[in-house]
């Protein structure tokens, strides 16, 4: 597993990509879930009782920053299918969506625009925020292991060729 990670991240481009994905994902999720505020002052805090939600966001960001560059490597270097890449992006997306729909501006916009249907969807994403995030992390873990395994096999084949 470590060898596979070394293979991908020995290329500096993928390290930069991973860092960018991690920072963007972490920052936007912390902003949406109201751990970080930009106005009137830039401030961050973790309210009591929300520590678990915060740790899920960090895990989601770390996994996304590993899975997506590894799949970009598979596609661009080894010319493999984009199937696993879409799994990684889907996992990241649903993990992000879970926290976005609550009392904040995103939830308010959805409810104002779509009325009762919007309220039901927003309630669902809010009520099951933690289980959805855990499911997204589970999906990313699965994509991570299958990507590592296929990279091992594909790299061996490529080396033999």
């Amino acid at each position: 597993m470590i060898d596979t990670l070394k293979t991908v991240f020995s290329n500096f481009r993928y390290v930069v990509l991973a860092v960018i994905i991690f920072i963007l994902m972490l920052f936007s999720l912390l902003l949406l879930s109201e751990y970080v505020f930009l106005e009137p002052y830039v401030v961050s805090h973790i309210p009591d009782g929300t520590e678990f939600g915060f740790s899920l966001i960090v895990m989601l960001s770390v996994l996304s920053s590993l899975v997506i560059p590894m799949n970009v490597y598979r596609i661009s270097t080894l010319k493999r299918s984009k199937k696993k890449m879409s799994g990684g992006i889907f996992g990241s997306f649903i993990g992000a969506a879970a926290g976005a729909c609550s009392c904040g501006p995103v939830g308010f916009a959805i409810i104002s625009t779509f009325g009762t249907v919007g309220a039901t969807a927003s309630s669902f994403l809010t009520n099951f925020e933690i289980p959805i995030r855990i499911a997204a992390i589970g999906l990313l873990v699965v994509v991570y292991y299958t990507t590592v395994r296929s990279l091992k096999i594909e790299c061996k084949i490529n080396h033999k060729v």
Partner: protein
Amino acid sequence: MDKRILFGGITIVVLVGLVALFSASNVADRDLSANRMHGSVSTTMGSSVLGNPDATITIIEFGDYQCHQCYNWFHNTKPTIFQNYVDTGKANFIFVDLAFLGRDSPKAAQASYCAEDQEKYWEYHDVLYASQESQIDNGWANSERLKAFAFNLGLDMDLFNECLDSEKYSKRVQYNISEAKKHEINGTPSFFIIGPNGQEHQIKGAQPYSVFKQIMDSMI
């Protein structure tokens, strides 16, 4: 002649009584001509003022009883603000409903005003935030539970039930929601901090105590 005077007197007393009764039964239709303004925000239909009415700073919260960020703010930030600003007379506090999250949100807001009829608004407000459950519309704020909260506070249940079932304060809650939208508030909790010279600061979200402190200290 005396009978006529007596009859006239009784008629006047009955009429005055009817007018008084009519006024009392229409507490829901607050007098908008006596518009209570804090800065640019109309708080006429919101809660009563909690704390020193002559305080130099007014904190207005727009909130929803089913909003988990409002719950976070209520439990994590509000106590320190009250300890340092409201209880010391530097600031006062008003709650205005932006009940949008689910079907039980407007009902919970109406219930708080039914409790206000019996002078238990703030007690009921606190019970709602203390009793909030993590899921929206899962039944924790349905009519039965709202009535149970009132019962536990020792309210007159005949009056409370009649008030809640008749949706007496439906328009009041709707007015507050429209007031929030007028000020382009797009989430809960949102706050307006109104200073002594009419300065207004808006705070969006359940921000920490340090943000409120910084703004209010700059106004004192």
